Every structure is written in C-alpha cells, then in structure tokens.
C-alpha cells in the first residue's frame, strides 16, 4: 500500500514517466540506426532485414497469410502438455522418493545417470521410437521438464527443519499430516523455482525437438524461413517466440506469487486481510 504523501507520489510518477520516455527514445534510435545501416548497405539487408521489413512480415504472417497461427498452436500445445506431464511426473516421483528412504536409495543411481545425460540428446531417439508427430515432442519436452521439479521437490522435502518436525510430532501429528501441513508447504518455494525452470526449458525443448524433425510447429517455420532466406519472416517468428517466452515467464511469476504468498509482501497483506474478513463473517 502506498502511504507516502501525495506530493511525493506525483513526483515519483513524473520520474517514472520520464524513464519510460527515455527508454522509448533509445529504442527508436536503435531501430533508426539499424534501418539506416540496411539502407546504406553496411549490413546486407538480405541477411539482416531492416525493422520496417520485419514489421511488414509480422503483419503478413499473422494477418494477411495467417499461416503462423497453426504452427504457433502446434508448438504451444506441445509445450503446455509436455510441461504439465514432465512437471507432474517429476513432482510425484520426488514426493514418493521423499517419503520413502528405500525408494530414494534405489532410485539414486538412475537419477545420477539421467542427470549426467544431456536430456535433449535423447531427442533423435524419441523421434525414432515415437515418430515425427506429437507424441515424440511430448516425450522430449516432458523429459526436459522433468528434472528441475524433481530435484527441487526432493531437496525441498528433505530440507524440512528438525524443530518444526518435532513440534508437529509433539502434537501427535500423523505422517500424513506432517507431509501435508508442514513438509509440502515448506518445500513450496523451492518447488516453484523448479517449476519456473521447467517452464523455461519447455519452450526451448519444443523448438529443438522441431528442429530435429517435425512437419509443423514454430521450429519448422523458423527453419523453413531461414533456409529460403526469407529473413524478415524468420525474424518475425523469432520475435513471436520472444513474446511467448515473456508471456509464459510472467504468468509463472504471477502464479508463483499467489502460491507462495507468504514470501511476497503485497500478496501476504492481501491474504491476511482476506482471511481476517472470512473469519469475522464465519
């Protein structure tokens, strides 16, 4: 909540506006220099298309031809499904391992081997086993998304501090209660960090998988444009991916702040207020 005096607040808003304007000005300069470089022939416009050409391409592939939508859908579908499958598998296996000393012991060598193997190197094998379509992509992305949530969940669960464990036991909590009411919530911040990493690798994994072999998807589109030297469209596709990456990251950030609200001041105050209100109305 903003409790500073109004004069101070207008002053700060003015500064913020000025900062945004400066950023825009610098960005415009960069674009101009780039555009000029292409026009003057310093940079070969065939390989390094000027901003205006890229902008035209964006309009074309999204709205005139509209061909990007299908590829975008294919990739996003793979990313979302693969991300969920990999993350859920990673977390569930880590929970099982976290609860069972025996399972943990026997799983360990495989985990070490898998961790040492670059997961993306399994890409060509997956395609050989599962074909060019959706299932091989799903497998590759799930594989890429598996590890960070797995390792983080396991670490988080094993990290639960002894004092709070004893506190729970002294109140005669069952194993199940200790897990749900202490270990899992306490591990949530580090689990969420793992999930965020998985989200970032999901998009990269999907593109690499499509580079290896596929008929549809943003990776295919990007390769096709580059190979036919349609650089403005290649750049337009790249920018689209940047935007998607940013969107996914922001979404994860918002979800994370809500889940681990007690580590975020603004969210914590919000939840405190809500719970207080719910209490007095009950």
């Amino acid at each position, binding site marked *: 909540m903003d409790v500073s005096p109004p004069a101070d607040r207008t002053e700060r808003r003015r500064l913020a506006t000025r900062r945004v304007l400066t950023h825009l000005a610098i960005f415009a300069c960069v674009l101009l220099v780039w555009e000029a470089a292409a026009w003057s022939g310093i940079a070969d416009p065939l390989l390094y298309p000027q901003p205006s050409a890229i902008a035209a391409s964006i309009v074309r592939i999204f709205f005139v031809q509209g061909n990007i939508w299908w590829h975008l859908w294919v990739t996003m579908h793979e990313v979302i499904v693969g991300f969920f499958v990999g993350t859920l598998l990673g977390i569930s296996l880590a929970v099982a391992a976290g609860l069972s000393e025996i399972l943990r012991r026997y799983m360990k060598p495989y985990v070490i081997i898998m961790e040492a193997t670059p997961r993306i190197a399994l890409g060509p094998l997956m395609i050989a086993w599962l074909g060019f379509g959706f299932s091989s992509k799903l497998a590759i992305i799930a594989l890429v998304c598996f590890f960070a949530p797995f390792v983080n969940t396991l670490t988080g669960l094993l990290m639960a501090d002894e004092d709070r464990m*004893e506190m729970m036991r*002294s*109140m005669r909590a069952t194993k199940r209660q200790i897990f749900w009411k202490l270990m899992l*919530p*306490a591990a949530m911040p580090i689990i969420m960090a793992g999930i965020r990493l998985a989200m970032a690798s999901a998009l990269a994994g999907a593109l690499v998988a499509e580079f290896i072999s596929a008929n549809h998807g943003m990776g295919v589109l990007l390769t096709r444009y580059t190979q036919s030297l349609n650089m403005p469209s290649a750049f337009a596709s790249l920018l689209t991916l940047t935007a998607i990456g940013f969107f996914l990251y922001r979404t994860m950030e918002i979800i994370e702040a809500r889940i681990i609200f*007690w580590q975020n001041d603004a969210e*914590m105050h919000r939840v405190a207020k809500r*719970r207080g209100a719910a209490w007095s109305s009950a």
Partner: protein
Amino acid sequence: MAAVLKSEARAAVDAAARPNVLEGERVTKRFSETVVALEDATFSVPEGSFVSLVGPSGCGKSTLLRMVAGLIPMTSGTLAVRGEEVKAPRTDVGMMFQKATLLDWRTAVENVLLPTELAGRTTDADRKRAIELLHLVGLEDFEFAFPRQLSGGMQQRVSLARLLQTGADILLLDEPFGALDEFTRERMNIELLRIVDGIGATVLFVTHNIAEAIFLADQVMVMTPRPGRLAKVVDVPFARPREIDLITTAEFNEIVAEVRGILGGH
C-alpha cells in the same frame, strides 16, 4: 486477579502433599558409545510446580525434555507421566522450543489452531478459544498477521498460545525466550508465570540464566555436562506471586551462590 489468588493458594499447599506428575528413575540417554547426553537422572516433579533446568551447553537439558515429550526413546531407566511410562507424545504434555516453529503460511490464529486441527475437527468453540488465547498472550489486533509480520517476541507469544491451545497441563519449555533481548525476556517471563499460574500447569523450564531459573521456579534442577548429569535439585522457598525486587535480596543471592557453586565445581 484470579491468577494471583490461585498462585497464593498454591504456595500455601505443601509441595510434598501434591502428587508427582512426572517421575524419572536413572534416566539415561546415549547417542553413541562416547556421547552420553544424560546419565542416571532421578527426579520427581509435583503437580503444579514450576521446575527450572539450568546447566551449561551440552549437559542434556533438551535431551531430557525431548524424552519427557516422548519424541526420542531413552537408553535405560524409567520415565513416567502420571504413572504411565512415556512411549510416545501425550496429549497432556506439550513442548515449546527456542525457535517459534510457526508455520509461515498460516496466520497467527491459524497457527494457534494447528493442534486442534491435528486432533480432529475444529469447532467454533475452538476458534473462539484460539482468539482468547492470543489475547491472553497480549496479541490483540494481530490475530490475522502472518509470522513474517511479527517480531521475534510476538512469534514466541503465538507459539505459547499454540501450546496452551493443545490443552496440555505439563509444559516443557526449552529456552522459550532465549533468542529474545533482555527486556523482552524479562517481561515474557513474568507473563508466563501469570499464565501458567492461572491454569495451574506443571512446568519444566530450561534456561541458561541462573537468576531467571531461580526467580521463576519452585525447584531448580542443576545439571552438569560430560556426561550429562543431574547434579542437584535446589528448592526455592519464596512465596508467590513474586516481585522483581526479589532478585536483590540476600536470600535470593544465597541460592544463586549455591547453584553457581554446584556448576562451578565442574
């Protein structure tokens, strides 16, 4: 007011007339061949008394408390609460730690309600009691604050309220205010006395501070390290309620000197 009356009444009753709620006989705990945390401790604690445990670091104070709480098994000896051998945590025994051990994702009142929740369904009466307990420990207006919004002292107050919510009347307090500053600790001690007197609880209170141990207690268990031993149980005869000026009297300082002497011999 009621608390004061009750504690006066308590002082009037001869300690020997009250039944022992806790009895230990040659209680021993070895963590390994060489680490003897506690050896041959024999003691008894009458109902409603306040017992302090003092001794240097590593003399087995926490170990003793954790065995009474049923958190760790002993190596040999017998330990009985209300005549029953301790095998697991009991409902009439509660423990409080040096760290507040609150759950960060729960508001103060939700933390206080934790023991109720673990035991089964939470009723409106439980909820009402949790709020009352928070008021009792001086936390009006902080019922819905999260631990991170509270100072260290306030967190320990929540932790104390949570302990009271368990309904336990044998309270094991392991340096509960050890992490707090001198002023806060003194205030918390006095409030603690008021509260436990009010509910007539039996208290085992661990501290490093000799004066604090004596000021609070009916009996002081003096412990010495390597191996952990219960060197002596010193009686503290002063009437209750006690005023803070007590610590400047000659009688008080005689007891301080006695405890110091026992500890110094090691």
